[in-house]
């Protein structure tokens, strides 16, 4: 149910998709979902965004793949994964039994591969939407990805929208001069929503060895360290776009999530927090409910975009 025991309506509305509550798990931080069976009920979440899928299996980057930094984490996993066929055969049938919205994060080495992934998944049941991952910083040299230019964003979104029978959420990179320009390009190309932000291209140095701490040299920074920048970007984009915005970046608590909603996000994704607490997303849902109860908010939808700037 979308109602808390205290009678608060937690449901969220992306237009093309109604969610039980506004909390989704971020891709790359929740595996394929089934790993979390022992720790939380998937039916308590607004939905899950599964780990990014290329068409085939993908090997990923050499370790070290993780380094902890001040209130943050830099990762350079490199989208290691099983590919769409293994996902459809082994994971999706079990996710269909879970009462939650399943959003599949899709990847490609080029535009043709993105289209092939969508073409294959369009033939599978049990998927609510696609999250178009145009922004992973760890798969090409120095973080190159389609989300770095309005033109490549427009072309790819246009092609995938034309090919897909499902709604498309475009996940944006913060590693750009103007994220609003990129978001507008995605909107003009017909995206149904945008999700932001992916990780910030970053690095860590081992002073004693004078070597990078990551096998891939650069990686993506996530966690509480990026929250204020993510919040600013979500506010900028939500203020200018008509399509819904899904906000993320360092959300650890219910109040963090509510700040993104107030800044204009219709829903949020929880990422790094899940590494710290496997049940973080559910705790965040509970935290949102408690805040609404204590603040006399009857429906969490009512706080979306209510930031007051005098």
């Amino acid at each position, binding site marked *: 149910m979308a109602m808390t025991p205290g009678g608060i309506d937690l449901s969220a509305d992306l237009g093309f998709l109604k969610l039980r509550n506004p909390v989704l798990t971020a891709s*790359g*931080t929740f595996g394929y979902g089934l790993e*979390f069976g022992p720790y939380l009920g998937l039916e308590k979440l607004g939905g899950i965004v599964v780990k990014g899928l290329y068409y085939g299996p993908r090997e990923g980057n050499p370790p070290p*793949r*993780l380094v902890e930094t001040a209130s943050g*984490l830099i990762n350079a996993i490199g989208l290691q994964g099983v590919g769409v066929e293994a996902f459809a055969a082994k994971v999706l049938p079990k996710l269909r039994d879970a009462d939650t919205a399943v959003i599949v994060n899709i990847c490609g080495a080029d535009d043709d591969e993105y289209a092939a992934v969508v073409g294959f998944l369009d033939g599978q049941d049990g998927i609510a939407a696609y999250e178009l991952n145009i922004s992973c910083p760890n798969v090409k040299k120095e973080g190159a990805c389609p989300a770095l230019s309005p033109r490549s964003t427009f072309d790819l979104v246009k092609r995938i929208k034309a090919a897909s029978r499902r709604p498309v959420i475009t996940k944006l990179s913060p590693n750009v001069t103007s994220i609003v320009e990129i978001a507008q390009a995605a909107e003009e190309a017909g995206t149904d929503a945008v999700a932001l932000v992916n990780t910030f291209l970053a690095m860590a140095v081992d002073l004693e060895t004078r070597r990078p701490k990551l096998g891939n040299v650069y990686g993506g920074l996530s966690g509480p360290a990026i929250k204020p920048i993510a919040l600013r970007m979500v506010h900028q984009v939500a203020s200018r776009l008509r399509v819904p915005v899904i906000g993320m970046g360092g959300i650890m608590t219910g109040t963090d999530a509510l700040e993104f909603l107030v800044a204009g996000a219709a829903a949020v994704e929880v990422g790094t927090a*899940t*590494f*710290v607490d496997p049940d973080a997303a559910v705790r965040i849902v509970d935290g949102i409910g408690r805040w609404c109860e204590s603040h006399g908010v009857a429906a969490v939808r009512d706080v979306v975009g209510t930031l007051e700037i005098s």
Partner: protein
Amino acid sequence: MTIVRDARLREVQAWGDFFRFGIDAPAVGREARPGQFVMVKVAGATEPLLRRPLGIHDAAEGGIELFFRVAGKGTEILSRKRPGDRIDLVGPLGRGFSISAAGAGRTAYLVGGGRGIAPLYFLARELSKAGTKPVVFYGGRSLAEIPLRDRFEKAGLEVRCSTDDGSFGFAGFVTDLAGQALDAERPALLYACGPDPMMKALAAITAKRGVPAEFSLESVMGCGIGACWGCVHRIRNDRGDGWVKICEEGPVFPGERIVWP
């Protein structure tokens, strides 16, 4: 595997920068097997952000024991906890050592270097229960780095110590001590946990002699439950080799599957 938010720290024993914690956590203690680990939250704040993976040193109905060395900020904060404090942990996690593979009536060698000794106490006790005779080889740079030697002896377990500086036991690497023993005797299985160079050397020694071996690998971990794909090691499988998650398929792997860097 379960999340225990408020496990009570029952007992702390310290030797310099080595610590042994006794923790009341029945749900984890009942389920734990030798070679498994727990993810321990060290701070209530966002720094250090991640939990720390620590091998289970011993387990019983009432809870678990951990043995660790202060290696950085996270373990340093953890080391300041006192009896009565609460500990937030997730576990038991991963796949541990195979006990039955050694066989009743046979001898098994257990080789631990430094903090890598942690899971071998639990393993030695369980092997004994299964009728296998464990012989523990325990090495450190000096006497101060092998604080658990009395504990093994008090439990009636055979322990042979080595120190790099010769301050106690065999003077030299624990790999040389174990290698000499392997020249005289052929155990059913060798289990090891310690620094990568130690385990890599043991992998070569055991492979040459045809002695099966199991190694517990260590890595920085993001989540410990298979979700982040951060803790990989090169592992052989049916189709060649690839990056395999230590937390999920390991941390213990058969020697022949591990590709050493």
